[in-house]
């Protein structure tokens, strides 16, 4: 499950950030997201969260998304994995 979540999340980020094949694989847990990538503005974050919900079949509440959630790839992955945990 964890590997699948990781793989799917990288796929979503590749679509949102227009990453070329292989670039999404280079994301590490420390890779910065919101606040580090100028193209990831509030509208893009909104689209990213909605796509995560749709593809990973989870619900993200209003009070769960903030700058910390999207600070790094690792924080986002940890959040999504916890949401998908049985």
């Amino acid at each position, binding site marked *: 499950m964890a590997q699948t979540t990781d793989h799917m999340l990288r*796929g*979503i980020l*590749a*679509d*949102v*950030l*227009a990453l070329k094949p292989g670039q999404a694989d280079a994301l590490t847990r420390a890779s910065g997201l919101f606040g580090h*990538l100028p*193209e*990831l*503005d*509030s*509208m*893009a*974050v*909104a*689209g*990213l*969260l*909605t*796509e995560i919900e749709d593809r990973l079949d989870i619900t993200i509440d*209003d*009070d769960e*998304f*903030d*700058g910390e959630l999207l600070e790094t790839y690792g924080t986002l992955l940890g959040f999504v994995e916890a949401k998908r945990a049985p």
Partner: protein
Amino acid sequence: MARCSALSKPSVRPDPVMASSTPVLAWSEWPCPLPGGGTRGESALVCDHSRRKRLLIIPALFEEGNRMRRITAEVMRRLGGAGIDSFLPELPGLGESTVALRAQTPGDWQLAMQGAAGHFGATHALAIRGGALVAPRGLPGWRYGMVSGASLLKMLMRARIVAMREGGIEETQPALLATGREKGLALAGYQLSADFIDEFVTLVPDPASPLADIAQDMVGGGALWLRAEPGEDEGQADALAAIIAMGLAT
């Protein structure tokens, strides 16, 4: 995606009218019907050579319209080269329209698209994303990446929540929706009236629509409406044009 490239080459054949050059897109004004009667001039991007196959394109809405603009124009050029005229009207209140968005409702947009279909003599329609929610009735064709009004509204409200949170102001979707339905709301720079929000949040793609669904896996690659910044993808434009050209060839 092999399936798409295999589709695109044989189907998008040069049309004798356009064979010598890349099809040129031009601006055209059309009489947009008004809810109370009468018309007002609105603009449209067109590829019109008085051909028999005439496709009305209902654009994606709001920010997605910006992200999808380039691929939409690229599909129009490809279709022009394949003997198909196409028409991309502005929705009143968006793009080059001279009227205020806050004065519009989804019903006004649907009326506008119905008027555009009649004015341009459209034989088919391609509705992109939320465009399917305001597509003219009765035309056959396609809807690409269809989405509900509630889903689009949710994204717009989230964008506002994220932006406001950066400024230390907490908002929630239920509270924003309640305010929006009562007083209207500014979402991601779009001024939406109470009537607009009240109507839009209930809109879902019509299950009885004559428009055939085009899913992203038929087009290949990541959907361009998801991009953080507007992008382009020639392969996706080829695939979309091929699906339409093949559908119109029969």
